[in-house]
């Protein structure tokens, strides 16, 4: 394994990590395994493509568009489905199945919008080429993935630890009833969490679309089981757990390609889900109830 491969593992891990932190935030706080997250991911990339390549707007507006798509979809998912289901005391499995329905609808909408074609960003619309660092050659997209993920996760952790809203979120995780008695607007906490988690997912979609210069309605599909594998591995609801799980999955995938062969890569996330469920169902970094989120 050389420095270039290690760097590639780091950038893949950060991309997976950004997606999985969003997923795990929603799982930990709102107790929803949001299987529609891969469609939000796709729509993040699509929104950016529409703004950058269709409307010829500058690249930074593409990032704004991806974030906006995440915010709008997150709010829609929570208000149209997760909140009514919570009101009716639906269990975790029922909500997860409903989110598969939302996934189906959003992927269908993405197919209608793109006509099922592969879209590429116009040449030069986003930074491309290679940046030579000591020992490795990085693409601008890889650097952005690493920078955005580490920066946002750090911000998110500080926000959850220090701000008044962060404390309210952690209180709602501990017990939504006790939090409500103490004046926390629990509905607003859930809404904010699903919005933030979806925005992270949409942003990771844009970053993947940028790094492969390819936007497609099915681009989220590989992330359905990868996301599940990562949050199982890291432990439900834990932000550091999601990052560790992403690192383990990315390393296993890259190393399996290096040492065994290309075909095996697709099996890694599934094998990981089975192994974690059978051997350590609580995940690598299980969190005591008080520390969730």
């Amino acid at each position, binding site marked *: 394994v050389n420095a270039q491969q290690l760097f590639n593992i780091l950038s893949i891990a950060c991309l997976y990590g950004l997606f999985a932190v969003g997923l795990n935030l929603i799982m930990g706080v709102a107790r929803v395994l949001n299987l529609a997250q891969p469609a939000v991911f796709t729509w993040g990339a699509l929104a950016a493509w529409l703004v950058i390549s269709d409307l010829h707007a500058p690249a930074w507006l593409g990032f704004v568009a991806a974030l906006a798509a995440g915010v709008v979809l997150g709010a829609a998912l929570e208000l149209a*489905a997760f909140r009514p289901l919570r009101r009716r005391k639906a269990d975790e499995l029922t909500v*997860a199945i409903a989110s598969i*329905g939302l996934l*189906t609808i959003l992927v269908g909408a993405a*197919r209608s919008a793109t006509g099922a074609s592969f879209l590429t960003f116009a040449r030069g619309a986003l930074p491309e080429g290679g940046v030579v660092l000591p020992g490795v050659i990085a693409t601008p997209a890889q650097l952005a993935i690493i920078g955005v993920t580490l920066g946002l996760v750090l911000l998110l952790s500080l926000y959850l630890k220090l701000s008044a809203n962060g404390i309210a979120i952690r209180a709602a995780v501990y017990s939504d009833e006790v939090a409500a008695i103490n004046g926390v607007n629990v509905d607003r906490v859930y809404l904010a969490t699903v919005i933030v988690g979806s925005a992270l997912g949409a942003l990771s979609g844009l970053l993947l679309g940028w790094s492969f210069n390819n936007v497609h309605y099915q681009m989220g599909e590989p992330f359905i089981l990868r996301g*599940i594998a990562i949050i199982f591995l890291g432990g439900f609801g834990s932000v550091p757990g999601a990052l560790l799980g992403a690192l383990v999955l990315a390393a296993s995938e890259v190393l399996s390609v290096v040492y065994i062969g290309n075909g095996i890569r697709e099996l890694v996330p599934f094998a990981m889900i089975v192994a974690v469920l059978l051997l350590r169902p609580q995940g690598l970094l299980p969190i005591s109830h008080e520390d969730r989120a």
Partner: protein
Amino acid sequence: LSDLLDFLDAYQFLAFSVIILVALSLSTYVTMASGSLSLAAPAFMAIGAYSSALASIHWQVPFPIALLIAAAGGGAAAAGVAVLSARLRALYLALMTLAVDEIVVTVALLVPFTGGASGLSGIPFETNAGWMFGFAIALVLFFWRFSRSRTFRFLSAIRQSELAARSLGLDIFTARIATCAIGGVIAGVAGALSAHLDGFVSPTGFGFDLIITILTAIVLGGMAAWYGAVLGGIVVALVPHYLVAISSVREYVYGGILVLVLIFLPRGLASVRLPLRRTWANARSVASR
């Protein structure tokens, strides 16, 4: 009668696709009868399809033997998964079985003897209307008897409260494995029938899309009774037939059914009659007083 036969002939392939989806819904329903939803029916269907196809192509076994091989393969694989996942419940079991399905599809793409992505062709065309309708009648008879059996009441007890069932001395481990094996046998036979109907098998047919279709069928039909799974399977199999003109509409319909039914009718279509029936029972008890 000849009109009926003409009608069946014209709509034979539609009827076959309805029967296959109903079989897969029942295969999933039977795992839920003991309270644990398994999403791996497509995986066991694939195992049945490939095992009977390979046995027919390489060993020229007669079709009934190929069906038995498919049933044994699907049942054994399902029992194996059930033993491995005996400790898992609810969401965790559903996700584990989702991963099992993806593993089977990916392995079918990778190993040489399944023909990879291009699939297996040259499977003898053996499935005819007799086999298909025979399978459908066998399923209906089985579930009709099964839902009235003592075993089924054990399973319902487990579904309603595992703790209470265990304290009554019911063997939960064996019950789970038996229901999963029955589900695997049904899915395996369905796979063999569809492989020998099309003369062709490829991994793409057994992926996440099929799981969504099955989930839509059983969510729509509901978990209240086995005929819910039948009803859901029939409706969902007919949807693409009537909406084939506009491709994405199918996705909106399936997704919409999943979300709306779970919010507004969480026990599905099979539960709709229940209030009526209760009214009827009340009326009778009032009348007899």
